[in-house]
């Protein structure tokens, strides 16, 4: 088989699938990328058996054939080529490809495609379409809150719920919880609740940067795998089995004090405070005071480094309710502020020992809960 395509497209396609290439090879073929012709396009696939990514690029295809070649070598070689178009010729004896571009020529040996792990087919279950920008925003604000250690595997995943015309993503690591709901492209009949590995969703988020218009999410009938279909890529993943915590009861239903703060000022104040918190135990204290006689209130962001110094930043804020104070880990505070957009951020809290809830008018369906730290005031 002969394939001719733009070098730039091939390069991008290889970059798309590269994250699914196995890092450590227990199975050598999983370090390879599968090349095949598919409906007049070149399909690239990589898998580490937990997550598989395929991507399609426009190409001129003559004949038929499939082959797997080392992903790393092909990617690096293609990236170093000078010309505009690349020609790939599939070889049988030995198995491999010859890559030609202008007068550059590389022969890469591979492994027969029969040895490539089969990508699970995902069908029989629910399937919905979600507008890409809505879904991407939700991923950005939720996925980071998932646990990175696997002491409780369900927490390394993100709970994805589909109901009527609504989707909900939820992630928690034991200290914080991020939840976002949004509209589906069309309503569905059944209810779906699956746990998708956070790593997979991070890949989906990255691929959505490619400019897809929508995401089609399908769940297999047996509930063990799911597929995200983008405009030119597809991600197939195993699902995390288990019961996700009942996150809704972890979201406080009321608050004593609510402060609406200018987001960029809050980010700046928190970043400054983090410098001092770094040498301590990462504590940032937040003091919220309502203004007198219905005047504007204030939020103080305070941090201390033992024996080194301290920092206190005061911001204007619209405060509703009593004066209160609460302490957060600087990392948790920075993380949530960094994913917010819009002009303002809302902080809802009640006492120093009750959770802080972050919301934003801009992200209507978003709620972020952070457990406070118990500190000496």
């Amino acid at each position, binding site marked *: 088989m002969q394939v001719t395509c733009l070098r730039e497209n091939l390069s991008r396609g290889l970059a798309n699938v590269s994250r699914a290439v196995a890092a450590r090879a227990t199975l050598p073929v999983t370090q390879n990328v599968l090349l095949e012709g598919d409906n007049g396009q070149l399909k690239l696939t990589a898998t580490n058996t937990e997550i598989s990514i395929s991507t399609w690029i426009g190409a001129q295809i003559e004949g038929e054939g499939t082959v797997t070649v080392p992903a790393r070598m092909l990617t690096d070689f293609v990236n170093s080529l000078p010309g505009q178009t690349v020609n790939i010729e599939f070889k049988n004896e030995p198995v491999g490809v010859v890559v030609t571009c202008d007068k550059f020529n590389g022969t890469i040996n591979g492994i027969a495609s029969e040895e490539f792990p089969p990508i699970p087919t995902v069908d029989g279950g629910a399937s919905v379409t979600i507008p890409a920008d809505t879904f991407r925003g939700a991923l950005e604000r939720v996925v980071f809150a998932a646990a990175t250690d696997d002491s*409780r595997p369900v927490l390394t995943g993100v709970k994805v719920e589909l109901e009527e015309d609504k989707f909900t993503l939820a992630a928690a690591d*034991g200290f914080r919880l991020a939840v976002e709901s949004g509209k589906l492209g069309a309503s569905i009949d059944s209810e779906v609740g699956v746990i998708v590995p956070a790593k997979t969703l991070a890949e989906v988020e990255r691929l959505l940067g490619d400019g897809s218009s929508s995401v089609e999410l399908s769940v297999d009938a047996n509930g063990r795998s799911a597929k995200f279909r983008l405009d030119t890529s597809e991600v197939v993943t195993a699902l995390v089995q288990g019961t996700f915590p009942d996150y809704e009861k972890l979201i406080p239903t009321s608050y004593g004090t609510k402060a609406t703060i200018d987001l960029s000022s809050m980010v700046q104040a928190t970043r400054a405070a983090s410098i001092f918190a770094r040498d301590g135990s990462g504590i940032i204290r937040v003091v919220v005071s309502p203004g007198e006689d219905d005047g504007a209130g204030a939020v103080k962001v305070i941090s201390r480094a*033992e024996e080194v110094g301290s920092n206190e930043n005061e911001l204007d804020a619209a405060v509703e309710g009593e004066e209160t104070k609460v302490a957060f880990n600087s990392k948790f505070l920075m993380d949530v502020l960094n994913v917010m957009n819009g002009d303002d951020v809302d902080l809802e809290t009640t006492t120093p020992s009750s959770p802080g809830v972050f919301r934003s008018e801009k992200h209507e369906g978003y709620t972020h809960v952070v457990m406070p730290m118990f500190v000496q005031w």
Partner: protein
Amino acid sequence: MPIQVLSDDLASRIAAGEVIERPASVVKELVENSLDANSTRIDVHIVGGGAQSITVVDNGQGIPADELSVAFERFATSKIDESSDLISIGTLGFRGEALPSISSVARVEAISKHIESDAGARYLVDFGKSNAVEPAGAPQGTRIEVVGLFKNVPARLKFLGSAGRELSRIQSMLASLALVYPHVAFSLSADGRERLRTIGSGKLVDAVSGVYGAKVADQMLELEPDDSTAFYVDGLISSPSLNRSNRTYMTISVNGRWIQSRRLSYAIEQACHGFLPERRFPIAVARINTPLGDVDANVHPAKAEVRFLREDLIYSVVQRAVRGVLSASAPVHELGAGRAAGSIGLLRAPGRTSDSTAAGSIDASPSLSPSQKSGFTQWPEPSTVVEQSILPDTDADLTGAAATSTPKETLPVLRVVGQAHETYILAEGPDGVYLVDQHAAHERVMFERVRERFDQNASESQPLLEPATIDIGPGSMSTVQEHLDELNRVGWGVEEFGTNSLIVRSVPASLATRASGDGAGQVFVRVLDELSEGGTGETWRNRMLATIACHSSVRAGQILSTDECKDLIRQLEKVERPNTCPHGRPTIIQLNMNDLEREFKRR
């Protein structure tokens, strides 16, 4: 059989059993006599592990001819006269039991010349039967020869070990005495071969050099005595990179008397906790000074143990002294220290790998083993040329470790070069290249931070989003109950929940950014497992804090940016004891500039 008083002969043989157990006890009694006679040189010759003959020659003040026979009477001594003297005993012997005891179970010949007489005298006691004192030509001092030990006590003879075993007992006993009396030149020869020699310069480090070798002596740190009080300790302790796998390298003396005290060795061990890896022990010489009235030496027949009036005070004095010097000058672990000659580990040239393990194992074996005796042979005659005592031994120039081990007081100024294997931070410093174990280093930083907050009673706590239930073993529950206050104080919020489970509501704040809530809950189980092994008070607390620090730290295999590396090094510079992690592993290892140049054949 009617009740009867035993004959004198039998009675003294029974009494001898108390004091004289084996050849080593004979040597000990005789050498202690020599020490009490202000000798500056003591030579011991052993034949057949001491069973055949033991000869002790000293240059002390000697015994006057007319007192020579009295010395062999029971309870005859020149060291005390009135009973009140038993309260404060400054001499090693005082009971007057040694010579009569030995002479009842062996043939003993004593030749002595007293300092004030012109000629010497000779006196022979043959298994309890005394002979007349004869005049004899003799140099200043006393020479006692013990032949055929236990020949008349077959039961005792049966229980003696092999000649080699008895010799090694004598050797280690004499080594200890040599360490306690650095101003006395000791020598030991067995079957004509020299086993031990110290030069008697008065400097403890020279004694250590004679006993354990020059390489060891180079790495000893001096205890700084606080002699403003009546109780103080001086001596030497090995720097943490030099350690041994058992406790026999700790020598303790009280007011010049060598003693064996489990409690005091434990005090030293405890003081080294955190500097040495688990189950490794220091080489140490601790000389404790107390008012004489505070010690009762009249407790143990062989005087190996003493009783202290204020043992706790001594315990803490010892611990403080050792800990002080270790924290003040714990040096950077040097690559290859305590390892084979000529090998510097990572940069070992190809083809020489095979000898490194073999040589390393010799180094780890007791320095007194016969295979190393050549190290002692070239010492100059005792008390002649003291300056030469710093001569390196034969292979010292092959060992990068011995030649350059200058203890560094703190971390050198380091410039981060990068990260290797996602585990080590590579840095260059004034005297070579340094490798920092990122986990161990961060662990040390976190440990001191966590401990500081704990000590200030100001530990922060991070509550969990959802309380976690954990199951623990039945034994662990009592640990939790026993230490609940401390667990709360460091930030754990735990409550009992049924018989064998707990609810964890909050965790120490430092754990929050490294592990998920459940991960932190599991750390709690880990802490309990480690802590249920026992221990109390400070040890327990430190282990708890170390476990928390461990789980709050970056792991091996975590990629760090250059800024993060720099930040870690900067934090490490600030801690009290940057060179070891709280479990005693080194945080930093040096590749010496000289070694590098040598390995690359630049010179």
